[in-house]
Each structure stands twice: as C-alpha cells, then as structure tokens.
C-alpha cells in the first residue's frame, strides 16, 4: 500500500528535458505570460486598424486639418502626418503595420501635435508614473483595509459594526468613483477647509525641485492625498463586502474547525487559515479592478488637477492630438495588462493548487 513508484533506473536526460518543457507549457505562469503578450499584440493591432483603416480615421482627419488650416497640399500634409505618427502612409498597408510594430518595440510612439514636436514617449514617461503611483497606492490601501474590515465583519456578523460598515460600504461602492472628488472637494476644501484644494494643482509643490529630500517626499504625499483617498473610498467597500462573504464561507470549512481541534493559537488560525484562504478569490478580482480604477483616474485627476496621464489623455482628446492619444491609450492598456499579470502571479504564489497547474 506504499504509494510510490520504486523504479530505480535513472530516466534519460532527454526524457527529463521533455517533461520539464511540458511542465513549463502547462504552468500557470507561462500561460498567463502568453495570454498577456497576446492581449497586448491584439490591442496594438486593433489600435492600428482604428488609426489607419477606419473611414474618418485620425490620419484622415489630421490630413484634412493640415490641408484646410495650414494650406498644405494633400501630399505635404500626408508626409507631415507620417512624421508625426512616424509611419510612412505611402507604403503598402502590411509594411505600414510592421513599421508601426517595429517603432513601438523601439519605444517610438510618434510626436505629439499639441505640445510642439515633443516625442509622445517623453510625455508618457513624465506623467504615467504619477498615475501609477497614486492608483497603485490607492488600490493597495483599499485592498488591505478592505480585507481587514471584511474579516472583522465576518467575525462579528450581525453586530452593529457589521451592519454599519455594510451599509456604508454598499453605498460607497455604488457611487461612480469619479463623483467622489466632488464630495471630497466640498467637504475637505470648502466645508472643513482642511486643505487648500483649489491651489493644490499638480503632483507636488511647484516651488520644490524633485529630489529625495523629506520635504519633497512629504509634498508628493500631500498632493497625492485626495486622489489616493478617492481611490481608497471607491474601492474599499467592494473589498470589504467581498472579503466578508469569502470569510464567512471559509469559516464554515472543516479545516478551520480542525485547526481549532489541533489547538493552534487563535492568531495563527486567523492569519494562515482564515485570512489566507478567504483572500484568495479576491486576488483574481484585483486584476479586474485595476482597469476600472485606471479608467476613473482620467476624470479624478481632472477634478483634482493632479498631473497624471489621465489629464494628458483628456487634453489630447480635446486637441485632437492623435499620436499622443494613441500612445497614452496603448500605455494605459499595457499597464493594465501587466497589472493583471502581476495579480495573476501573486495569486499563483498564494495558491499552490494554481501554481502547479493542477486546477483546471
């Protein structure tokens, strides 16, 4: 009844290599990575089609505008547009496509029209980090806070605490996230006058120069408070309610009871048994919520005048700056795909059943 294979012959190197490769292809990590790359490629291609091939595409509109506003000939306008998108529009369409992909790989996203010939990649490099920083911080805080609140709500279910937090959480999670700035500006800036909201524009005090001094870091955090608070408030209710449900179902699991029977300390059961198992399904949701928070960031940054990529996208749309729009759209999508991948990897690290690829 000893359940082991006792073959003593050493397997050949080739066979070992083959099982290794097979395992790699079946592994969760590899499949997630492949999925992410495929999605990014799909986004690039669809964007190319939208920019280039649709009737009334941005290139056509740009060319028309150059002809009517600057009195260029169609040829001149087309070559100028080509310079802005850094794609030669006279070449055959498949060549344009490969040129476009090649440029993207080299980080060449064209030139912004509205901010006089600044490369799009430069604008993105300057503003995207602020969005990633504020959104990431907001998500992190709301996730951790939500897990804690949710667990407490499950432990003290039907208590005053549970009912109060549930009510507030369900209301908070139904308000569109981009409307929270209005309420925050009113309460914090106008009613309680805690922060000079109207003067806090940008990502740090303009009098300071970026450096790693405590003063600068404090300023960065101060200017990020409102956007981060918005992301936290809009997400925390959702996480708390999900965690509560998840914890309630884990509390009914036999292994929690068995852990008590084994005389494990309460703390250990709370963290390694209830907390860890209950938070697992939430990590898959984390991936999905990245997209919704990034989307909301466009408007949220606009309300707070927080100089992130969201404001740039809005301005690019207003100025019909198509190369910039395309670049920002691509970068936001790629960031979301990568964030998804990260959440996936985190999840697979936490759940051994997924890591080994035995689950589905």
């Amino acid at each position, binding site marked *: 009844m000893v359940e082991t294979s006792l073959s003593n012959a050493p397997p050949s190197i080739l066979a070992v290599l083959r099982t290794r490769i097979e395992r790699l292809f079946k592994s969760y990590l590899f499949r997630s990575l492949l999925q992410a790359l495929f999605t990014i490629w799909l986004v690039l291609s*669809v964007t190319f089609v939208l920019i280039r091939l649709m009737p*009334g595409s941005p290139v056509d509109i740009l060319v028309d505008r150059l002809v009517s506003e600057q009195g260029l000939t169609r040829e001149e306008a087309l070559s100028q547009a080509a310079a802005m998108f850094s794609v030669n529009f006279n070449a055959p369409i498949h060549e344009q496509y490969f040129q476009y992909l090649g440029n993207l790989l080299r980080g060449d996203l064209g030139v912004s029209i509205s901010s006089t010939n600044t490369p799009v990649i430069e604008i993105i490099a300057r503003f995207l980090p602020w969005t990633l920083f504020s959104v990431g911080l907001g998500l992190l805080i709301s996730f951790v806070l939500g897990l804690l609140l949710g667990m407490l709500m499950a432990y003290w279910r039907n208590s005053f605490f549970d009912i109060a937090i549930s009510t507030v959480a369900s209301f908070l999670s139904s308000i569109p996230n981009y409307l929270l700035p*209005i309420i925050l500006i009113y309460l914090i800036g106008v009613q309680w006058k805690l922060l000079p*909201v109207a003067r806090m524009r940008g990502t740090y005090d303009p009098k300071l120069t970026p450096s790693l001094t405590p003063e600068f870091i404090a300023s960065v955090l101060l200017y990020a408070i409102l956007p981060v608070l918005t992301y936290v408030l809009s997400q925390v209710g959702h996480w708390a309610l999900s965690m509560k449900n998840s914890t309630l179902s884990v509390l009914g699991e036999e292994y929690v009871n068995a852990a008590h029977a084994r005389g494990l300390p309460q703390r250990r059961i709370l963290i390694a048994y209830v907390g860890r198992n209950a938070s697992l399904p939430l990590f898959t949701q984390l991936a999905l919520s990245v997209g919704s928070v990034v*989307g*909301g960031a466009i408007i949220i940054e606009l309300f707070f005048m927080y100089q992130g990529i969201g404001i740039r996208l809005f301005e690019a749309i207003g100025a019909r700056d198509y190369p910039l729009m395309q670049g920002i759209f691509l970068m936001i*999508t790629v960031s979301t795909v990568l964030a998804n991948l990260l959440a996936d990897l985190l999840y697979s690290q936490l759940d051994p059943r997924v890591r080994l690829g035995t689950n589905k």
Partner: protein
Amino acid sequence: MTTATPSLPQSRRLPWPRLGSLWRAFRRSPSGAIGLFGVTFFLLMALIGPLIVPVPRVNVQARSQPPSFAHILGTDNQGKDIAAQIVHGSRPVITVAVLTGLITTAIAITLGALAAFLGGLFDRLVNSAANFVLTIPYLVAMTVLASFIRLNSPITQALILSLWSWPVLMRTVRAQVLSLREREYVEAAVALNLGTPHIIFREILPNMASYIAISMILAMTSAIYAQIALITLGLVPLSDLNWGKMIFSARTTGAIYLSETVWFILSPVLAIALFQWSLVTLARSIEDIFNPRLRSGA
C-alpha cells in the same frame, strides 16, 4: 421550495414565483424593498416627472438660493430651480441606461448561446473578444471611442456603451447553456429535434430569467457610470438638461470650489448615487430571493 440540490421545473414554466410570493419575499427583505422603491421612484421621475414639473426658468431675482419651501433643493446661479433640473435631467440618463441594459443583454445572450451551441472557432473568437474587452479599461475605451464617434442620439450612446459591457453576462450565459444542455429535459428537446432557437428560448433562457434580470440591472449601472463620465468630460454633445451636464458645468465653471453652489453640485451627484445604489440593492435582493444556482459564471 428549499432543497439543497436545486431541481428544475418539470415543464417550461418560468422559475419565477407568482407575484404574491414575490411581494412577500420583498417584504421579508427590507433592503430589497428599499431598492425596489428607489428604482420605481426614479423610473417614475423619468417617465412622468417632466410632465408634472415645469421646465426650470432663469430667474435673476432668486440666484443661488438655499433650499426653501418654494425650491426644495434651492436654485442655481441663474436662479433656476435645482429640483426641477434633477427631474428633467433624469429622463435622458435613464433612457440611455435602459437602452444599454437591453442591448447589452441581447448581445450577451446571442453571443453566449451561439458560442455554447456552435462551439469550435466561433466559440474561441467570442471568448478572445471577451478577454480583449475585459482587459481594456472601460472608461478609457469609451473616451477614445467617443472622440471618434459623435454620440448625439441616445441609441448611438447606448450602442457604444453596450460594446464594452457584454462579456461578463455572455460568459455566464455560455456556461449555463453548456451545463443546462447536458440536463435531461433539454436532451429530450434535442431528441425531439426541436431546433436550436427553440431550445435556447423556450428551455434554457426561462431557467436563467432571474440571473438575466440581475445582469441587466448591473449593465444599467455600468451604463450610467460610463455615460455620466463621458458627459462630465464634455465628450457628448448635449442640448437638453441632463444630470451629467449639471456636473460638467459645475466642473468647468469652477463651481465645485464655492460653498454657495453646493446644492447645485451635490444634487446630481446624490441623485446618481441613490439611483445606482437602488439598482445594486435591487439586484442583490433579487439574487437573494431567487438564490440562483447561476451565481458565478466567470
């Protein structure tokens, strides 16, 4: 009624309880009753409100007034009654939301059922499309699309909004059709050679009625979310009164930084929040009442 393993109704009868028991169920769940009341309230506001409440007019004598008996929510900086603006502004918002809910549901059911029944390449295509759509942030996609396409009619708005909200329901329908297909009574229908549409519409969809209702309500909430966002960004050309337009003008005129205009700004925000909350609460209590076995599809 309470069996651990849900049994299916013997015939084509809908799994909806009769109206009387539905009413009792709502009475037993107070949050469900509140949600139902809220949704009904806003739907009535959009339907008959504009017929009763007069169109708000400019009145320079009564600018930026706090709430009073004459003006329940006060007046804006042109002296227009805010409550009247909320009532008149509800109709376009709710129209687009309802349209989007219907279109999304139609797309999701069609694609999900076809993917499950046809399988093969079509199934894979639909699934990759769903993955693609789910990866790209909803609002980002909407803002970029809105810059290409003029969203001047409610139908175009609803169509564009639906483009990004079908995948979740589609996956559930697909999963359900796949699993319900296996059950005997559908096998019997297949054996009788009743045809795919018959099986989908007469056998499978009625069994998912409550889930579809929930998904449609949730599609409405995401439609409102995206629609108001686009209007707030100024990406939708608008002539008539609309909750989103109130927020847009509050933002562009800098009214959000002034305490006199608080009623004008907070009214549409609260109206949107309350309507969204009512919808979500209603959806949740429908889920509780029917306890659908179809809960997780994705």
